[in-house]
C-alpha cells in the first residue's frame, strides 16, 4: 500500500515539471507536423502517375516506423532523465530522509517509484502512439496491422530503460546514472543492428553480439517487436527475400519469441530486485 502512496506522489510531482509539459507540447506538435506530411502522400505522383495503393501503404508504413522510432527514443530518453534523478537525487538533496524515517520499507519506495514512473511511461506511449496512428489513418487511410501490440512494445522499451536507470540511480549521481543508461541504450541499439548484419552475412560471432546485447538490455529487442507489429504482411514478405532489407535496422522479419518476452519479464523483476537490494544497503 505504501508503494502506491509513493507511486501517486511520484506521478504528481513528475507530471508538474516543465519537462513533462515540454514533452506533451512538443509531442503534440510532432503529431500535427507528421500528420501534415502524411496528408501530402496520397497526392504524390511517380513519373506523372498517381501513387498506387500498394506503394502508399509501403511508404506510409515505413515512414510511420521512423516516426515511432522518434517517439520511442523520446520516451526512452525521458524515462532515463526522470528516473536518473529519482533515487540518488532525492538522497543527495535530503528529500529521501524525511520519507525513509517513516514506517516504510525501502523496497516499497523502489517499487512505488517504478510503478509511478512506469504509469507515466504507459500513458505517454498510449497517447502518443494512438494519436499518431489516428492522424496517419486520417491522412492516408493506412493503419498498421497490430497497432496495440506495437504500442505495448514501445511502452515496454521505456519500462526496460526505466528499470535499468533506477538501478543505476541508487548508487550513482543523477547525471552519471543518466549518461551510463543512455550509453547502454545506444550501444544495444547498435549491437542489434550489427547482429542483424551478422545474420545476413551468416557471421556467427557478429550475430551473437546482437543476441547477447538483447538479453543483457532488452530495449532493442523490444523495439524490434514494435517494428514487426508495424509492418504490413506484404512488406515482411518482400523483405524476407532480400538480404539488404533483412539488415535494415527499421525492418524486422519475425516477432520476438515468447521465450524472449518471458525473459524480458524475468529481467525486469530481477533488476527491480537488485535495485531494492542495493537501496537497502545504501547509507543515508
Amino acid at each position, binding site marked *: 500500500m505504501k508503494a502506491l*502512496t509513493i507511486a501517486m*506522489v511520484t506521478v*504528481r*510531482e513528475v507530471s508538474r515539471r516543465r519537462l513533462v509539459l515540454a514533452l506533451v507540447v512538443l509531442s503534440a506538435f510532432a503529431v500535427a507536423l507528421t500528420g501534415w506530411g502524411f496528408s501530402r502522400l496520397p497526392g504524390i505522383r511517380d513519373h506523372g502517375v498517381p501513387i498506387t495503393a500498394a506503394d502508399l501503404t509501403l511508404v506510409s508504413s515505413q515512414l510511420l516506423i521512423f516516426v515511432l522510432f522518434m517517439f520511442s527514443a523520446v520516451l526512452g530518453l525521458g524515462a532515463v532523465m526522470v528516473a536518473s534523478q529519482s533515487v540518488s537525487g532525492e538522497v543527495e538533496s535530503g528529500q529521501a*530522509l*524525511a*520519507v525513509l524515517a517513516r514506517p516504510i*520499507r525501502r523496497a516499497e519506495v523502489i517499487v512505488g517509484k517504478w510503478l509511478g514512473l512506469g504509469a507515466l511511461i504507459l500513458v505517454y506511449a498510449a497517447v502518443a502512439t494512438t494519436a499518431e496512428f489516428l492522424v496517419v489513418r486520417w491522412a492516408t487511410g493506412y493503419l498498421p496491422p497490430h497497432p496495440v501490440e506495437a504500442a505495448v512494445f514501445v511502452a515496454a522499451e521505456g519500462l526496460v530503460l526505466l528499470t535499468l536507470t533506477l538501478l543505476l540511480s541508487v548508487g550513482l549521481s543523477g547525471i552519471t546514472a543518466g549518461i551510463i543508461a543512455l550509453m547502454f541504450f545506444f550501444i544495444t541499439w547498435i549491437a542489434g543492428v550489427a547482429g542483424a548484419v551478422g545474420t545476413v552475412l551468416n557471421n556467427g560471432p557478429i550475430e551473437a553480439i546482437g543476441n547477447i546485447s538483447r538479453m543483457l538490455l532488452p530495449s532493442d529487442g523490444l523495439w524490434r517487436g514494435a517494428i514487426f507489429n508495424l509492418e504490413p504482411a506484404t512488406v515482411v514478405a518482400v523483405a524476407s527475400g532480400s538480404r539488404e532489407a533483412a539488415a535494415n535496422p527499421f525492418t524486422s522479419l519475425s516477432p520476438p519469441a515468447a521465450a524472449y518476452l518471458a525473459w524480458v519479464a524475468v529481467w525486469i523483476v530481477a533488476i527491480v530486485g537488485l535495485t531494492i537490494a542495493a537501496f537497502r544497503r545504501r*547509507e543515508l
Partner: protein
Amino acid sequence: MAGEVPAIHAVELTKHYGHIEALAGLTMSVPRGEIFGFLGPNGAGKTTAVKLLLGLTSPTAGDAWLLGEPIGRAGARRHVGYLPELFRYPAWLSPAEVLRFHCRLIDLPRTVREDKIEAALTTVGLRLRANDRVGTFSKGMQQRLGLAVAMLGDPQVVFLDEPTSALDPVGRHDVREIIRALRTRGTAVFLNSHLLTEVEQVCDRVAVVDHGRVVASGTLDDILGGGVAVRLHVTGVTGLASLLCRWGQVVAEGEWVTVRGVDTENIADIVAELVARGARVHAVEPQRQSLEDRFLELLSAADDGAAA
C-alpha cells in the same frame, strides 16, 4: 507497562565509516516526555546518532530501541517524527500536499487528516501558504514545513536535527515554544544542536558529544558541575579562606573572595556566618557558569584526553 518503556534506548551504539569512528559506543536512555539535548561541535557524531536511531544508516555495533522496538524495523518508526538537518521537500508540491503524503505514510485515519494538517500548518505559521508551491519557499519556510512534517500525527518521539539553522529570532522562539508544547503532551524530543542557548533554554537533560564519544551527560546542573560560584566583597575579618573552605573551593583576591561549588541554599548561611564573625559584607554575587564555558571546558578536556 507501556509507560515504562523508554522513548529511546541505546546500548553501545557504534558507527564506523571506513577508519573514521563517527559514533563510539553511545549508551543512553530518553524517557517519554523528556527533552534531551544532544550537544556537540560540527562533525561530533550528532547526525550519525539520529540517522542510526531512525534506521537511515545501519550500526557497525550495538543495539537500540525506539519505543521498545528494535531500530531498523519499519515498525519502530510508526510514532516518530523527524526534521532532518538537510531538510528538503518536493518542490512541485504544496505544503498541504506534502503533509497529506506523510499522513498516508504514517497511516493516519482519513477522517482526521485535514484537521491534523491544518493544525500542523497553523503551529508552524504556514497556514496561509498551504497551497503555494514548496519550490517558492525560503529556507526558513522549508524548515518550518519540516517541523510541521515532524509533528504530524502526534508522534511519541520527535528528532529535531539543528531545527533552527535557517530561522530568524522569531522563528527560533517559535521552535522553543513548539518543543515545550511537545513535552507537555508527553512527547520525547531528541534535540541535536550546537546552539548552546537553544539547549540551555529547553532541555531537561543533555549529552555533550565530541569525536563520536559522549564526554558528559546529565541534567544541566550536573553538566555545569552543580552549585554556583559566589563572589563576595568582605572586609573586617581575617582568615577568610579557612573560614569559607567548608562551603566550597575558595579563591581570595584582596577584599574579594570567590567560593566555587556552593549549594544555592547555603548562600544565606555564608553571609550569616561572616556577619556573626564581625565581617562587613559589601557585595554577594552568585555566578552561574555558562553552558558555553562548561562546553568549551569539556571539549578541551576531551581533546587533552585524546592527545594524552
